[in-house]
């Protein structure tokens, strides 16, 4: 997961390298560190370093890390010849390596040879049953083949052992959302909020899921989590601000006549509306008229 600052930094570097301003190795290291998926750029810039003997040798032992990174990027871009070449180089350098074995299995995956890949992963797991990356490849394979329920099973099993893997919880939540299994998705976000209570993304996602589930109690809780998102992001999160307005409107629809809710609710909503209008006036003034009408209609219904 990447913060806005990190993303800006990455994009700046990417622009620089794209426009011939150098910094390819820094870019590739940052991509690795942030674990983002920019396979086309990685392939392009990584290959240009690897194909230049001078630049390659200046990397020292980092050369092998680069081969691995380019191999995976090549697989993601379906440039399987490049991937095969990189993997061969690594296999020659590290003949006994399990890590290279994993790459070779991934290559089978990229080719669509599911059964062979499955066998390769199974045998790798026999020797290293706690290799998290391999477990996750199996989930990815199930997902790629459209066996979503199998992917869910594998992922749940994985999380029984590796319950601190936040990325896995997020993946599971997103799979549940894609199947409209919102209750189960909510559970995943609850786990994430419990273990990392200061990450606003989880509060926001949880609120979104609860709003989608609907019902008075869920809406009231959603509103609380939109509020905590606003708190954690210094009031800058547009989605959370909109969320407050949507929740208040929906809650009032469901509780017509209960004056206690209305007073409390409308204060927060009008605050959120004010912040939104101020922000749009500053940064998207041509969209302000629609926003004002939209917010009015949401407030009117509350």
């Amino acid at each position, binding site marked *: 997961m990447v913060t806005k600052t990190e993303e800006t930094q990455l994009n700046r570097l990417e622009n620089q390298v794209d426009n011939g301003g150098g910094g390819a190795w820094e870019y590739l290291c940052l991509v690795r560190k942030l674990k983002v998926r920019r396979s086309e750029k990685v392939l392009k810039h990584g290959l240009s370093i690897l194909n230049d003997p001078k630049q390659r040798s200046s990397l020292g032992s980092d050369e092998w890390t680069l081969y691995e990174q380019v191999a995976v990027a090549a697989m993601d871009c379906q440039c399987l010849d490049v991937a095969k070449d990189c993997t061969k180089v690594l296999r020659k350098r590290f003949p006994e390596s399990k890590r290279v074995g994993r790459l070779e299995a991934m290559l089978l995956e990229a080719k669509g040879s599911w059964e062979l890949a499955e066998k390769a992963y199974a045998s790798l797991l026999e020797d290293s049953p706690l290799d998290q990356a391999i477990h996750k490849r199996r989930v990815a394979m199930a997902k*790629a083949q459209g066996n979503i329920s199998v992917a869910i099973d594998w992922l749940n099993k994985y999380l029984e052992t590796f319950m601190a893997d936040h990325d896995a919880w997020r993946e599971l939540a997103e799979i549940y959302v894609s199947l409209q299994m919102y209750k189960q998705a909510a559970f995943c976000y609850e786990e994430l909020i419990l273990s990392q209570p200061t990450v606003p993304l989880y509060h926001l996602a949880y*609120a*979104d*899921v609860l709003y989608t589930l609907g019902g008075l109690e869920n809406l009231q809780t959603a509103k609380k989590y939109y509020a905590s998102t606003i708190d954690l992001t210094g009031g800058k999160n*547009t989605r959370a601000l909109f969320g407050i307005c949507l929740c208040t409107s929906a809650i009032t629809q469901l509780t017509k006549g209960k004056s206690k809710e209305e007073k409390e609710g409308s204060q927060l909503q009008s605050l959120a509306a004010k912040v939104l209008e101020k922000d749009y006036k500053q940064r998207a003034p041509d969209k302000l008229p629609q926003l004002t009408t939209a917010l009015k209609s949401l407030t009117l219904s509350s």
Partner: protein
Amino acid sequence: MGSNGLRYEIAQNAYIKLVLHSLKHPTSAVNGILIGRISPSNDVVEIADSVPLFHSHIPLLPQLEISLILIEEYFSAKGLNIVGYFHANERSDDSELGGVAKNIGDHICRYFPQAGVLLLDNKKLDALKKSKERSAIMQLYVRDTSKNWKLVPSDANNRFSLKEPSANVVLLDYIASEKWNGIVDFDDHLDDISKDWLNPGLFN
């Protein structure tokens, strides 16, 4: 076949925007809203424009509701309505209209009862360079009398067509120049409101 007998015609810019959006996010499902009106002769739904919506968390309501409110507000001032929904599946070998797309389609029908749902045809997109395909690389679904979404078969009746016959030629050109980089969707707007989901100047 749909019970309404209406034809659906999509303008080049609306069509290309949706395909470019799908290409910008090749690893996730994407969706969009179709904007237009019924022809004065009452027999054609003219899709004049489109708004790319999301590339993440598509089945979540809050972002959908807000985007629909704002989009409708903007276009009704121009005499245009929300007339349909576009969806592209996450996996290239998935050619079915899934539950999420159907549900959102139903939601759109509340705005416009004869709403059509367009599903990106991934195989046709893949083959576009070589096939010289002239018809839209999308499938049209409409609701039958029991409110089930049914595929409109592409036959001589031409129930779904491109307004400009050379749209795919222009599309291929834009693909070659990687024009998808310039597409802004509602997700991008919600992350940074200075990004304009109207994509003005995209085709300049």
